[in-house]
């Protein structure tokens, strides 16, 4: 039982990270129907900026909490600027192009950012400074740390904040209007360019937060760390219904838990025929089944309007 609980905790934390990244994907998709494949790289840049800023401040003798906060703020600012620039340079000129074009551009931007990061931060793995005290808890034989709790809380709070933003503010209303029909929204006096830029900037800020969480959790970073993370988070967003905020959260956590249970039990369930390297099978089988019966994902709205 303690092992099962431990696997659930493992999955919950991993899933919360997926969810945090997935929120960025789903936000941009919800508004303009674009899959921003460079989002994983934004997360990576958030982590690396924090390492540089917090690391050098720590070296200068600043207290840990202050250095960590400065690192987080720097990461958020840099990623917001990056998100804005991405939209302005890579996506806005293509807004009326066929849908495949911005998708390919997004993949291109992902590669550009990876290589840029490699040139700036080098090829080596970087160690993330320890920003949080190491506090271990034990619950019914399962071990977990303070940072794991923080990750789960942060991603839940972020999703709550986003929901408030989208459904309770003027900007949110403008976003929903743009998502429904950009042309009509602009006739109603919504500045579409500004709304879409805002979506990118907010999504990237979330990416930065996710980056700092990932960094604090694993304490390592690498210029290619965003790729796999982005892919998994994208899967989570699709699973939950891309474009839906609660769906991204649920999809992320579901994916994390399925993966953890898959890795933990697949060997025993198949009598050793399939090992833990087949853990992704579970996640993708679930994804395929969900998409077969509910093509728009678990929480997805009907897609008729969009395409």
């Amino acid at each position, binding site marked *: 039982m303690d092992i099962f609980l*431990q*696997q659930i905790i493992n999955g919950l934390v991993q899933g919360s990270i997926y969810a945090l990244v997935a929120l960025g994907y789903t936000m941009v998709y919800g508004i303009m129907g674009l899959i921003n494949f460079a989002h994983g790289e934004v997360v990576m840049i958030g982590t690396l900026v924090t390492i540089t800023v917090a690391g050098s401040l720590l070296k200068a003798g600043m207290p840990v909490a202050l250095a960590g906060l400065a690192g987080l703020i720097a990461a958020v600012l840099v990623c917001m600027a990056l998100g804005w620039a991405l939209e302005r340079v890579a996506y806005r000129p293509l807004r009326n192009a066929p849908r495949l074009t911005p998708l390919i551009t997004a993949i291109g931007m992902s590669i550009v950012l990876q290589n840029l990061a490699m040139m700036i931060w080098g090829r080596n*793995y970087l160690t993330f400074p320890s920003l949080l005290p190491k506090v271990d808890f034990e619950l019914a034989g399962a071990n977990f740390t303070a940072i794991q709790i923080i990750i789960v809380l942060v991603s839940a709070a972020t999703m709550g904040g986003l929901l408030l933003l989208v459904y309770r503010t003027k900007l949110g209303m403008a976003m929903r209007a743009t998502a429904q029909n950009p042309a009509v929204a602009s006739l109603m006096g919504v500045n579409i360019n500004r709304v879409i830029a805002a979506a990118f900037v907010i999504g990237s800020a979330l990416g930065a937060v996710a980056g700092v969480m990932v960094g604090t959790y694993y*304490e390592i970073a690498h210029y290619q*760390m965003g790729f796999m993370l982005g892919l998994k988070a994208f899967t989570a967003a699709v699973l939950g219904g891309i474009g839906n905020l609660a769906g991204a959260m649920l999809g992320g956590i579901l994916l994390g838990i399925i993966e953890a249970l898959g*890795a933990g039990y697949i060997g025993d369930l198949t009598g050793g025929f399939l090992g833990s*390297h087949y853990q992704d099978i579970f996640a993708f089988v679930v994804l395929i089944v969900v998409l077969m019966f509910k093509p728009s994902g678990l929480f997805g709205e009907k897609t008729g309007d969009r395409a």
Partner: protein
Amino acid sequence: MQAKRSVVALSVAAAFALSACGQKEEPKPVAASAPAAKPEVVVKLGHVAPMTGPQAHLGKDNENGAVLAVEELNARGMEIGGAKVKFELINEDDQADPKQGSIVAQKLVDAKVNGVIGHLNSGTTIPASKLYADAGIPQISGSATNPKYTQQGFATAFRVMANDVQQGKSLGEFAVKQGVKTVAIVDDRTAYGQGLADEFKKAAEASGLKVVATEYTNDKATDFKAILTKIKSTKAELVFFGGMDAQGGPMAKQMKELGIKAKFLGGDGICTPEFMKLGGPATEGQFCSLPGMPLEKLAKGPEFKERFTKKFGAEIQLYAPYVYDAVMVMADSMKRADSVDPAKFLPAVGKTKYDGVTAMIEFDALGDLKGGAISIYQYKGGKLEYVETLGGSSIESAKADIKADVKEAVADVKDAAKAVAGAATAVGKEAVGDVKDAAKAAAAAGKDAVKAGAAAVKDAADATKAAVEKK
């Protein structure tokens, strides 16, 4: 339209200029500038390692080893077949990906390289070796340890490092010595990790250890909590990891976070400074192995380390000395064959007897390093500490020991003789009366002593010779 076209032309020109800038600015050999009027031959050596991706730091390390060797060779100025030889390194990036490995291998074959150094990973080396074999290009890897590489029957495949059969066996023996009874095995599903884990498993089971869990990850993963939780439930006393440092470090850390107290053991892939950096305090007390003897214990080791750090301002990560030796063996074979033509110098590679930085390099019929030793290390106080050398018996080190012993004995005898001579003269000075007798006696005594000493040295030498032959 015109304007557009010229813009395109301009950008193409700019791209060319850029790529030209990117190339190494080595002075191209110009016949006129060579005063010695000797023809110059450019020998192209391909070097392949992952320069991007999670193992890029190891790839760079390998490349540095090769660059150092080539620069030293060029500075030394070799002559082969009557022509002055200039070595040129063509670096390729295989991203540690078997598919990419074959693509760049084909590229090197098309570029008609004279020899290939690499690849870094077994997974890329094995498929690439077929292409080199078909083209008859000698290939020496400094780090691919999967036994399959040399077992395919290719005449062109060599390695200057002990393979995983030797390594897995030594690690298995070592695990037994640690007094553990149950082990869990994790591998990263690469040719290297899987190969090493399989050999370890065989050795562990043969010596009575119980393998209670076999788990898998991949060479890009960062989260191992799920499989580690599973391992925790089996209460294994030792976790063996077949894989690289980028996964090993975080794995050790996550083991600690999950409260797993088992020992952590791995092969050469986690025997790097990077492993410690990534794993933090969780690496303390953990073990890993490296083929060969520790650099500090090798005659040319410390000096190589100094040259390397001076040149690159970086620590040696892992395989740089082996790659350095691989280049040197290639050059040495060309020299002995007096030809840079792969078809002509290939037979010479097999007959190599080269005193390298890492070992006395000789190949067996398959192209494996003869008598490769395996050393075990432990992470202690943020440092990699040498524990012991196992397996493959280290004849070379034994020989070196014997040489040192003999030298010492000779020195002793010399000292004794000197002392005797000194005593003799002193005696002679004091007793002026019977100078002759005393001197004679003293000289005789001295002679006897020296004779006895010499005899003893001879005996010792014979004994050591016998010992070496036995080994």
